[in-house]
């Protein structure tokens, strides 16, 4: 078991200093902006909580937040089961294992703006492979720059392409760690494939799935670069997710106050949802 030792703080100190420097100082700046008004030239006026009130009541924020939750929910519903299914079907040993792993990890290692640019061209109606195939071979009317539904399908497909492998890699790592003895015992008991999955594989994958789901939640909730490069938030505002809206306000219009207030609300929501995920998924460990 672990021993009580408060000198362990010294070992954590470097991390603490580095992360605190990186997190607390910018955070204080954001809090500072969120309660002030500025007219440029670094002249600030106390504004109180007006910005928070304004953001919380604005239609625009509600719409962006709604789209964001819709996006993240879809991503988790599609990617987690799909990732587990693919991991279950992968070979467990031999030459093909490293080949599969390397090929599957490839999309994750492409810079985010390249992913966006690549899918943008890939999906263009007349010159892209996807757009051309859909329009001219399958005869489906598809244009993500005009049709909001097409834009959503493209963004979701792009994210599934980009990140399902994270779930696959983590689930696979969880699967290969299960000792053979478990499977042999299940075989003797005459357990069905489903029972093996439900009572052996899934519980054993729980730890890695926790990190996979948390990472996928956090990253999809904060997604910015890929959808921005792909559609720029369009057509109209149909794919303007929360981060895109935030950057539009902060860097586009230089409304620092509202942008800061919005950031803090955004951060609080992410924190709350992650905390719920974290507690629910790790609650058995604490007992």
């Amino acid at each position, binding site marked *: 078991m672990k021993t009580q030792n408060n000198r362990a703080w010294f070992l954590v100190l470097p991390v603490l200093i*580095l992360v605190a420097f990186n997190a607390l100082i910018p955070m204080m700046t954001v809090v500072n902006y969120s309660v002030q008004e500025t007219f440029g030239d670094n002249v600030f006026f106390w504004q109180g909580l007006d910005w928070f009130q304004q953001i919380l009541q604005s239609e625009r924020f509600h719409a962006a937040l709604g789209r964001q939750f819709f996006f993240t929910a879809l991503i988790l519903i599609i990617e987690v089961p799909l990732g587990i299914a693919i991991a279950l079907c992968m070979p467990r040993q031999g030459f093909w294992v490293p080949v599969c792993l390397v090929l599957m990890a490839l999309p994750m290692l492409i810079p985010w703006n390249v992913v966006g640019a690549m899918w943008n061209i890939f999906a263009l109606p007349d010159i892209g492979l996807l757009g051309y195939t859909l329009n001219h071979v399958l005869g489906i009317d598809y244009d993500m720059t005009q049709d909001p539904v097409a834009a959503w399908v493209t963004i979701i497909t792009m994210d599934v392409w980009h990140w399902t492998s994270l779930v696959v890699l983590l689930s696979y790592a969880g699967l290969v760690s299960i000792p053979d003895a478990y499977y042999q015992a299940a075989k003797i008991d005459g357990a069905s494939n489903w029972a093996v999955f439900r009572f052996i594989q899934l519980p054993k994958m729980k730890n890695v799935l926790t990190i996979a789901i948390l990472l996928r939640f956090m990253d999809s909730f904060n997604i910015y670069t890929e959808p921005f490069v792909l559609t720029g938030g369009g057509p109209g505002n149909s794919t303007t997710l929360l981060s895109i809206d935030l950057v539009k306000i902060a860097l586009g219009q230089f409304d620092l106050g509202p942008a800061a207030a919005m950031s803090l609300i955004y951060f609080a929501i992410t924190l709350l949802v992650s905390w719920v995920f974290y507690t629910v998924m790790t609650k058995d460990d604490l007992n």
Partner: protein
Amino acid sequence: MRLKYLVPILYIAFLMLPIYWLVTMSFKPTNEILAGFSLFPQSFTLDAYRTIFTDPTWYWGYINSIIYVTLNTVISITVALPAAYAFSRYHFIGDKHLFFWLLTNRMAPAAVFALPFFQLYSAIGIFDTHLAVALAHCLFNIPLAVWILEGFMRGVPKELDETAYVDGYPFWRFFTSIFIPTIRAGVGVAAFFCFMFSWVELLLAKTLTAVEAKPIAATMTRTASSAGYELGLLAAAGTLTIIPGAIVIYFVRNYIAKGFAMGRV
């Protein structure tokens, strides 16, 4: 029985299609790309690659990216190792809160921090250096590295530490010459994740650099100039960004298959 292998095969085919498209496009002149659809390059050209390898702003983009990613990985792993050890071996005041607080830093949207980071790093005079980007990426990577390493360290029995103390090893010698080699698979996996998230992140890297440390991803935005999109060049630059990642994943593939499974992660 073998039918189930169809699933990973189809999945990999799906993953490769856009990549195939990007790679073929990099061998086409921009005119051909815009003129219409073709599955293979009709007039094969290496012009785009020639531009990238001869123009210093292009190839320095790659070098800058590699420098700050390496710097970030080294910093993250170095500070995360002792911290993960403390979390895996000891109870201390506030340990659980600290652990969750570390994680919360991964949840902050980069868009929130971009501007304050710019001001902070300008104030201490490291704006437009590799160190600035490396430090900024620590915000996301250190918590993840600590989390992953803690999982691996938990899997190492405590008897190992005790034996080393009985044998008279001072802590740091034990830590660097016995303990770290024992969990090298974990270090590999953690380094892979740090590399990956730093290599692909763009918003902070772009905000914190101007000329000297400009990453390749930011250089690529130059392809959208007043003369229109240079799609061939964009595709070639994109293709080249895949290579370092592919090399890294090739080297850590065995760690991922074997090592991940221990402990929490």
